[in-house]
C-alpha cells in the first residue's frame, strides 16, 4: 500500500524507553524530509505508569496526530488493551508472544493484522538490557513501512555516542535484528510504502525548543527557572547552551527567586526570561507586578497544564489565559501571546523580547504541554527574521540627558532606560509609586500621571501587534475561533471538513492581549456562523472576545479532559452544530 501518511504508536510501561524510541523515529522521518508530528503521553511517575508515543508521518504538511493508528507497537500487554480499538481497519499490531497470546488477542478484533515479534528473545540473544527492546521495535517498524535502516543508524549514533561505541553498536544490532525479522517474516514485502519525498531534511522541534532558540537568537542573556513540567526542557536547553552562547542560566531555589533574579538581571541591562507552568506562575504574580511598576522588561513563559493546583502535571490544557491577562495586583499593561506551533514560538519569542524592551513591560508567552513537549517537523527557522530592538536602552554615558529621569513623563509613556553602572544614570527602580527620578512619592497628581504614563504606552504598542490570522477560505460557512496549540488539530480537521464541501475557516489568536478590537470586529462582521474551540472548560477566549466586543458566540467546542483535541473530535463537533 503506497501511503501519503502513516500513523504509528509505540506504547509500554514507563521505563521501557518509549519516549526515546518515539523521538528517534520522528527524527528518522524528519531527516528524510517527511512532515512529522508526534504526541507523547505519560503520567507523573518515574516508573510504572503507561507511556505512549504517537507519530504521524506524511509527505505533505500535517498539523496533528490522528485518532486512527496504522501501526501499534505494544511493548507490554496494557498497550494492546488500551489502544487496540484505535487501530484502523487492516492496521498492524506488533507484539511479543511472551506478553500476550495471539489467540486471546484475535477475539476482539479480527479486522487487523497481528504480527508477533520476539522482542525479548532478540535482545536476550545479543545480551542487551531489556530497555533495548525499544530499538528492536524501531527496526521492525521501518521494515514494515519499507524504509532502509541507514537513517536510523545515524540517529542511533547521535543518540548513544555519548554513552560509548558499545552502546551504539548494541542498539544498532537490536534495530537490525528487528528489521530483519520482519522482512523475513513478510517475505521481504512491506504492507506500507511511504511515498518518497525529495524535501530537504526538516528540523524536529518542540515548542519549548523553539522558544529556547528564539530566546538565544533574541539575545536572552539571563534565563532563570525552577523546574516544572511541561516547561522544564527550556531550562535544560538554556543550561546546555550557556557557555557557548554566554547566557547565565539559573535553576533557582523557587519561582519567587526566579522572577526576582530575572528582574534584577534585566534592570542591570541583560535581556531576561523565565519559564514555568501554572503553579510557578501563580508564585510569580507578585514579581510580575513589580516588573510592571519598575518598568523592567521581562519575558515570562507560562506552559499550561491541567489545573487547579498540582492538577495533571504531564497533561495538557488551556486553562490559564484569563489568569495571565489579569494576573497580579494592581492595574498594568502587559502583552500575552499564545503561539500555535513551533514556528510561531520561535519568531514570537523574538518579538516578545523586543516588545518587552521597547515598552518596558512584562510579556507572557502562553504554551501548553501539547506544544511544549511534542515534536513538529518544520522548515529551518530563519534567524534573520528576528531582529533585536532594544528600544530606549542607553548603554553609553554620553547619550544620557544631563538631568536623567528614569521615569520621565514622555508623550508615548516610554522613558529612557540605562544599563546600570553608567556614570550619570543613577536612579531608583522603585516598587513604591515614584516620581520621574524614581523617588517614592504619594502625591496624588504624580500617582495619576504615572499611571497614565505607564498605560499610555498602549497607543504605540498596539501598532506593533498583529490581529488574529485567518486560515482557510475567506468566505466560510463556519468560522472557528481559537488560540494557541489548538491551531494544529483545527487545521487538520479543516482538511477533512473542507474536502467534504463544508466551508470552514479558522481565526487563530496567537496574540491575545492587548486585544485589537477593530480588526476582530471586522472579522466578526464578515463571518457567518462562529464557533469557539478551546481546550478548557469555561471558554476563556469566548469571554475575552465578549469582554472586548460585547459579542457572544453561542457555539462552543470545549475539551477539558487533560488531552489535546484530535481532529476527528473537531470534525464531528462541527458536523453536529
Amino acid at each position: 500500500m503506497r501511503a501519503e501518511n502513516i500513523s504509528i504508536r509505540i506504547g509500554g510501561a514507563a521505563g521501557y524507553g518509549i519516549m526515546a524510541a518515539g523521538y528517534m523515529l520522528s527524527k528518522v522521518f524528519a531527516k528524510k524530509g517527511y512532515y512529522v508530528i508526534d504526541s507523547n503521553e505519560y503520567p507523573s511517575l518515574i516508573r510504572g505508569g503507561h507511556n505512549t508515543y504517537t507519530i504521524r508521518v506524511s509527505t505533505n504538511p500535517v498539523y496533528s496526530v490522528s485518532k486512527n493508528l496504522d501501526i501499534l507497537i505494544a511493548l507490554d500487554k496494557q498497550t494492546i488493551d488500551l489502544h487496540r480499538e484505535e487501530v484502523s481497519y487492516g492496521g498492524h499490531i506488533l507484539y511479543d508472544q511472551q506478553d500476550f497470546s495471539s489467540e486471546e488477542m484475535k477475539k476482539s478484533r479480527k479486522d487487523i493484522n497481528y504480527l508477533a515479534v520476539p522482542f525479548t528473545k532478540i535482545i536476550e540473544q545479543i545480551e542487551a538490557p531489556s530497555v533495548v527492546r525499544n530499538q528492536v521495535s524501531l527496526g521492525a517498524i521501518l521494515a514494515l513501512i519499507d524504509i532502509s535502516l541507514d537513517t536510523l543508524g545515524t540517529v542511533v549514533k547521535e543518540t548513544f555516542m555519548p554513552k560509548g561505541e558499545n552502546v551504539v553498536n548494541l542498539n544498532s544490532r537490536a534495530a537490525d535484528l528487528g528489521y530483519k525479522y520482519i522482512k523475513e517474516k513478510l517475505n521481504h514485502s512491506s504492507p506500507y510504502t511511504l511515498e518518497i519525498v525529495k524535501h530537504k531534511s526538516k528540523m524536529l522541534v518542540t515548542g519549548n525548543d523553539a522558544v529556547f532558540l528564539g530566546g538565544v537568537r533574541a539575545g536572552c542573556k539571563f534565563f532563570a527557572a525552577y523546574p516544572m513540567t511541561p516547561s522544564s526542557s527550556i531550562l535544560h536547553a538554556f543550561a546546555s547552551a550557556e557557555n557557548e552562547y554566554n547566557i547565565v542560566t539559573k535553576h533557582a531555589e523557587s519561582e519567587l527567586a526566579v522572577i526576582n533574579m530575572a528582574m534584577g538581571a534585566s534592570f542591570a541591562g541583560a535581556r531576561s526570561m523565565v519559564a514555568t507552568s501554572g503553579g510557578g506562575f501563580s508564585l510569580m504574580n507578585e514579581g510580575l507586578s513589580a516588573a510592571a511598576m519598575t518598568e523592567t522588561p521581562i519575558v515570562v513563559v507560562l506552559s499550561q497544564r491541567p489545573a487547579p493546583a498540582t492538577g495533571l502535571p504531564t497533561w495538557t490544557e488551556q486553562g490559564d489565559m484569563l489568569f495571565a491577562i489579569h494576573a497580579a495586583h494592581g492595574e498594568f499593561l502587559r502583552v500575552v501571546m499564545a503561539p500555535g506551533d513551533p514556528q510561531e514560538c520561535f519568531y514570537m519569542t523574538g518579538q516578545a523580547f523586543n516588545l518587552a524592551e521597547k515598552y518596558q513591560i512584562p510579556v507572557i508567552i502562553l504554551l501548553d504541554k501539547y506544544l511544549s513537549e511534542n515534536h513538529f517537523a518544520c522548515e529551518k527557522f530563519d534567524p534573520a527574521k528576528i531582529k533585536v530592538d532594544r528600544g530606549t536602552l542607553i548603554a553609553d554615558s554620553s547619550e544620557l540627558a544631563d538631568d536623567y529621569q528614569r521615569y520621565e513623563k514622555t508623550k508615548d509613556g516610554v522613558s529612557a532606560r540605562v544599563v546600570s553602572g553608567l556614570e550619570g544614570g543613577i536612579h531608583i527602580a522603585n516598587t513604591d509609586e515614584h516620581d520621574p527620578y524614581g523617588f517614592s512619592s504619594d502625591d496624588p497628581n504624580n500617582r495619576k500621571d504615572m499611571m497614565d504614563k505607564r498605560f499610555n504606552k498602549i497607543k504605540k504598542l498596539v501598532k506593533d501587534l498583529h490581529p488574529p490570522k485567518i486560515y482557510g477560505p475567506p468566505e466560510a460557512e463556519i468560522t472557528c475561533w481559537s488560540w494557541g496549540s489548538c491551531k494544529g488539530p483545527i487545521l487538520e480537521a479543516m482538511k477533512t471538513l473542507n474536502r467534504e464541501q463544508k466551508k470552514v475557516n479558522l481565526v487563530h489568536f496567537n496574540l491575545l492581549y492587548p486585544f485589537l478590537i477593530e480588526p476582530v470586529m471586522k472579522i466578526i462582521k464578515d463571518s457567518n456562523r462562529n464557533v469557539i474551540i478551546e481546550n478548557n472548560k469555561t471558554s476563556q477566549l469566548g469571554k475575552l472576545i465578549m469582554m472586548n466586543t460585547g459579542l457572544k458566540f453561542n457555539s462552543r467546542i470545549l475539551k477539558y479532559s487533560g488531552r489535546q483535541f484530535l481532529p476527528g473530535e473537531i470534525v464531528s463537533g462541527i458536523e453536529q452544530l
Partner: protein
Amino acid sequence: MNKNNNLKPKDFNTHIKPTWCTGCGNYGIWNALKKAFVSLGLKNHQILGVYGIGCSGNGTNFLKTYAFHALHGRALPVATGAKLANHKLHVVAMAGDGDGAGIGGNHFMHTCRRNINLTYIMHDNRVYGLTTGQAAPTTDRGTRTKSTPSGVLESPVNPIAIALASGASFVARGFSGDTKHLSGLFSEAIRHRGFSFVDVLQPCVTFNKKNTYEWYRKRIDNLQEDQNYSKKDAAEAFKRSNQDEEEKIPIGIFYQEEKPLYEDGLKQIERKPLVDHVINDIDINKLLNNYF
C-alpha cells in the same frame, strides 16, 4: 576600588532628608555605610543598593547610588540577578529582619550557600517597624506585640547561625550604635571575595522597648578583641552565636573563609559582564543544526 576619589559621606546623600524616627538605628547604618563607601574609594554609580520593604527599605530614597527598591523579602534574588548580569557593580542588599529572616528567609539561606560576591546587611531591629510593631521572627520569646498579645511562642531566628549553617563565607554582626566599628565591618564585608553577611543590631526606638541602645551597649562584646577567637572555626562561631544574650552579645566577624565564588564557575562572564555582550545578530546556526 580606587582609594583616591575625593568623595565624602555626604556625597552619598540624595536631596531627601531621612524620614526615620529621631534616634532610629537606621541612621547609624546609613552613616556607617556611606563611610565605608568612601573608605573603599567607591563612586556612586559603581554601587547598586538593593532594598527590601520596611523602614530600612525607605532608605532607598536617601542613599545616592543605583538603587532597586524590591518587593518585601526579595532584595537578595534581585541583587543576585543584577550582580550576575553586571558583576562589575558593587552590590549591597539591605533589608529588615522581617524581610530577610521572615518572608525572605529562603533566599537568605540559598544566597549564603551560593557565595556570589555581594554584601547583605540585615537591619535587625527585632520588630516589624514599618507595619507598626508586630513581632518579627527575631523577636524574643514571650514578647507581647500587636500580633502576639499573649507573647511570642517561638524561639527567635538566629540570623548568624542560619548564615553559618548555610555556608556563608563571611558572617558578621555589628551594632548601629557603634558607627565606627560598623563602618569597618561594612568595608571588610564589601572587600570580602564572596557573599558577606552583616547582621546589624538596630534599635527601633518607637516599637522595640526592650532591645535599646543601652541594652545592647551593656552586652556587646567584640569578638575580635578576644585573642583566642578564630574566625575560621565554624563550630565555634555557631556556639558563640547561641550565647545567652543576657550575658554577652558578640559583635564582629564570626566567620570568614575563602572559597570559590559562584561567578568563578561562570565561563560566560569571564571576559566581560553579561550586559556588555553585543546581542544584535547572534549566530544560532550551530544550535539549529542540533535539531536536524
